[in-house]
């Protein structure tokens, strides 16, 4: 009887709600990102000096940081959805969730470190 093979305690609508919300946000975030990286920049690609000047601008620093967080979140929620499609046991799923969380936090930390490093370069 299926009830015995599965535990159905957890409510997981938040994964879908967040997936949808972050997805819609990404559309806006990536749209502006693309426009400013490629249409505002002369020749469509920034030189090193352009990049540093860009990321030092408070508005874009904020925008790119939010973009990084939201897109990483959406991407890893998506990876999780694909994996769950293959019927992971609850114990495996828990481990998997933790791994994805660590990867996500690590990605964001890396991105912030990279941003900070570029901003603080004097040459």
């Amino acid at each position, binding site marked *: *009887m*299926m*009830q015995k*093979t*599965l535990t*159905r*305690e*957890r*409510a*997981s*609508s*938040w*994964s*879908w*709600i967040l997936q949808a919300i972050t997805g819609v946000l990404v559309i806006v975030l990536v749209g502006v990102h693309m426009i400013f990286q490629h249409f505002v920049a002369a020749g469509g690609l920034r030189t090193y000096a352009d990049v540093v000047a860009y990321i030092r601008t408070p508005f874009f620093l904020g925008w790119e940081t939010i973009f990084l967080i939201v897109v990483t979140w959406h991407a890893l929620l998506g990876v999780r*959805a694909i994996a*769950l*499609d*293959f*019927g992971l046991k609850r114990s495996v*799923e828990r481990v998997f969730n933790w791994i994805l969380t660590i990867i996500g936090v690590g990605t964001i930390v890396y991105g912030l470190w990279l941003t900070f490093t570029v901003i603080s370069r004097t040459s």
Partner: protein
Amino acid sequence: MTMTRHFQLRIYRYKPGSDPHYDTFSVAMPDEANVLDAIERAWDDQDRSLMFRHACHHASCGSCGLRVNEVEKLPCVTPVTDYPDGATLTIDPMRNFPLVTDLAVDAAPLYERTREVGTPIMRESEPLRENGLRVLPEGIADFNRFENCIECGLCLSACPSMAADPFYLGPVALAMAERALAEPRGIDRQSIIDLIDDEHGLWRCHSAFECTEVCPSNVDPAGAIMRLKRIVAAKKFKKLFGR
């Protein structure tokens, strides 16, 4: 004068202990026939060991579900005139069910899942008239499409999530859950919501809509699933904002 069509029926065969393969049967069918008649003709004239499910022959029992040229169909109501004279029809059992033999699958996965939802569709006989025409519950037309379900399993066969996740509740049980939520008649609504609001419930549906495409009874399980997602998500928001 009746026109006749000739077909090559390429039928999936499997008997326990031997390898699966296809057998091809030539049949000549009148235009009024359905694909199930053609399969029966092959069984009757050529190979009595062919096993396939069938009962009512008019799309109300849900027994005969299978795939014709890779597409889920009820062969009892699929006319042979859908296919040109001389065509080869490849007949396969439904996907995502354990195979018993030839075209007959084990439908247990379907019934296990509907049982989990409480199989709430047994209407006790209710008089049609009671001081005038009996009034049906408010808004029932929005969600009683499920009452057309004949439990044929074509939706489970067509659903890509059913293929990947052995625990997925699937279109039948989820559409059934919408019906139960709308008119519980003694079933605990919260227990149904807890059942479907789960990683192996609603959230394994990725909106392929294949179930609605193949349903022979116009149940629209995909629509039911989307409405359920709205109901469950709305509940979450309301809880968050304390209402």
